[in-house]
């Protein structure tokens, strides 16, 4: 089935924010907003849920920390305990002060890298990925709101035209190819 979306292009972040509020007020569905820089307050105006990526980072940090504890205990205490410079390795806790730097570094390493990888996968960005912003100006100084319109596409377009947009495009999307 062919669906229609309307692209409203704005040239200012404040106008965009006002338009987003008006469109939401009319109960039209905003599919996506493309902006050249983070517009503060936009996710609230659009009603986006908070991102949980910081929580994943915390969990990854715990994973890294646990792995480091296991590794250090296995290598230094269990597998081959040595008396290095008169500092014998009797137990993990007695040796722990010497382990603090590596415990810390591994925690940070896991928390940072796995979080960034999660971000790339969730936002679907990676090398050789093709960009999906519908208009190249949206990385420069224009803001594009994509609103879905089925039977009432023209009505939505007329409404958007009055929200301060500089350009409105109605686009037929052929999804059944």
């Amino acid at each position: 089935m062919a669906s229609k979306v309307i692209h409203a292009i704005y040239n200012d972040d404040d106008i965009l924010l006002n338009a987003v509020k008006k469109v939401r007020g009319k109960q039209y569905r905003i599919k996506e907003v493309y902006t050249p820089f983070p517009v503060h307050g936009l996710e609230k105006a659009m009603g986006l849920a908070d991102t949980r990526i910081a929580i994943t980072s915390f969990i990854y940090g715990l994973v890294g920390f646990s792995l480091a504890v296991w590794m250090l205990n296995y290598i230094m205490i269990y597998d081959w305990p040595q008396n290095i410079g008169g500092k014998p390795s009797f137990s993990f806790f007695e040796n722990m002060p010497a382990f603090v730097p590596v415990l810390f570094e591994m925690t940070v390493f896991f928390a940072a890298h796995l979080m960034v990888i999660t971000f790339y996968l969730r936002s679907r960005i990676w090398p050789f990925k093709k960009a999906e912003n519908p208009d190249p100006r949206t990385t420069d100084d224009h803001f594009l709101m994509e609103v879905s319109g089925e039977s009432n596409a023209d009505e939505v377009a007329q409404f958007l035209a009055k929200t301060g947009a500089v350009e409105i495009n109605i686009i037929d999307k052929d999804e059944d190819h």
Partner: protein
Amino acid sequence: MASHYEAPIRTPLITGDKTYHDISVDVAAPIEGKANKSWWIVFSIALVAFLWGLGCIIYTISTGIGVWGLNKTINWAWDITNFVWWVGIGHAGTLISAVLLLFRQKWRMGINRSAEAMTIFAVIQAGLFPIIHMGRPWLAYWVLPIPNQFGSLWVNFNSPLLWDVFAISTYLSVSLVFWWTGLLPDFAMIRDRAKTPFTKKIYGILSFGWSGRAKDWQRFEEVSLVLAGLATPLVLSVHTIVSFDFATSVVPGWHSTIYPPYFVAGAIFSGFAMVQTLLIIMRKVSNLENYITILHIENMNLVILLTGGIVTVAYLTEYFIGWYSGIPYENYTYLSFGAATGPYWWAFWALIICNLLVPLTLWVRKWRRNIMWTFIVSIIINIGMWFERFDIIVIDLSKDRLPSSWSMFSPTFVDIGIFMGTIGFFFVLFLLYARTFPVIAQAEVKSILKSSGDNYKRLRAEKGDDTPHYTEVSGTASVKKETEKTEKMSSEELSENDKKENINNLLSSLGTFNPDTQTADDLKKISGVGPVMEQKLHSLGIYTFEQVSKMTDKEYDLLDSIINEFPGRAKRDDWAGQASKLKNS
């Protein structure tokens, strides 16, 4: 409506009445333009230095560490000096982008990208030295916790040198990821402006297909914040651990409890000095004075003043404690009467003058806002911080507990060559970066333009804080219909007759070109006009800046209707304005 209020007392961070599009143009300019002669000269010098260093490294590895000036007493010297010096320099970038982000310091945005690039390049240089010093760098993987062929003999996790391996590899990789994530939207901006398919392809790959969705931005900001939170203790830990290399030993002068905070302060001190050295040149060469203002330079000087003060206090403490202990060995440590008057007096005084005395001039506001003086001071600090590490390592080792083994160190050409080589390598990387990467975090800068741009500050001063920060679009936008599969504007394809008429209309208002009396200008000089576009303009009969400079909105529209490729481009790039400038020059 979002409030863009910022206290009027704050100096604008972006000057020159910029718009969002101006920022894109200014940041893309060094990438899209051609390198000038001085760039090639500096690049060639750096490349030669790098190749010389590479030769010295190969000589060292093929012959042995004996080609260095090390001896039985001084068994660590330039290599570790250079290692610590480079790691220290590599502290400013993450400090600027992470610590200043947590403190919500907006002035970081003009400088964070280059500072982080500098960090990464500096840490690469630092990492070279321990690897070369191993003597057999192909066995470098032995520092990793993997069992060896004789059984499960592991690396020693009690050793600060192994902590270094973990700290520096974590620091380098996390800094790289932090930097690259911030680069994605800026690469995307370059990608979408690219004129040739090749650059479009390259920046498309580099940008990871960044599209700038609202959700992406939300995650982007959260990731930046969390990375900043992680990188802040990380950056402090790295030089702390480097200082442990010395502080956990029993050598007088090295065995010092204040080393961790003192080393971290020294690292930030030298790192900011290096940022100053590079950015003072770059803002001039790449025309970025509107983004890296005198305020940025002064703020960095204030950080230098603070960290330099901490370092000074540490020097005085070391000197006092060495004297107060009454132990004769302590009289030969790098901060002692013995050092100041002994055979290494010149190294001692180089340290005191460069790190302690010269930075004091920055207490004077007029001097820390003087770009030339700041540049000189930044180079002096870099020299001073190199001497600090040299003094710690060489002076402390030169007079150990057994007077019969007292010795001096003299570097060989290989020591000097490798050091020069890393400086060359560093500048090779930085110069390439300056021509191919967006050197200002333009997406971030755009987000503070309305609060901190001088034009918007003036607007608020004149019309009050609640005035709208935009000009209302007049009338309603026209609605266009498109089908995604077909080319853009296809619905508006014009018939041949319409086209001819439009061309006539266009030329009647721009004036015609007479090849007998006039000479054609190089239209490619107009930013936004490439060889293809120039040809198209020629086919319409447009050959001179004079003609282009007469274009108004009406002509732009006519042009768009004839040439469908880049609708709106001519107007956005202000061809007429550019052409009238070119015409007069």
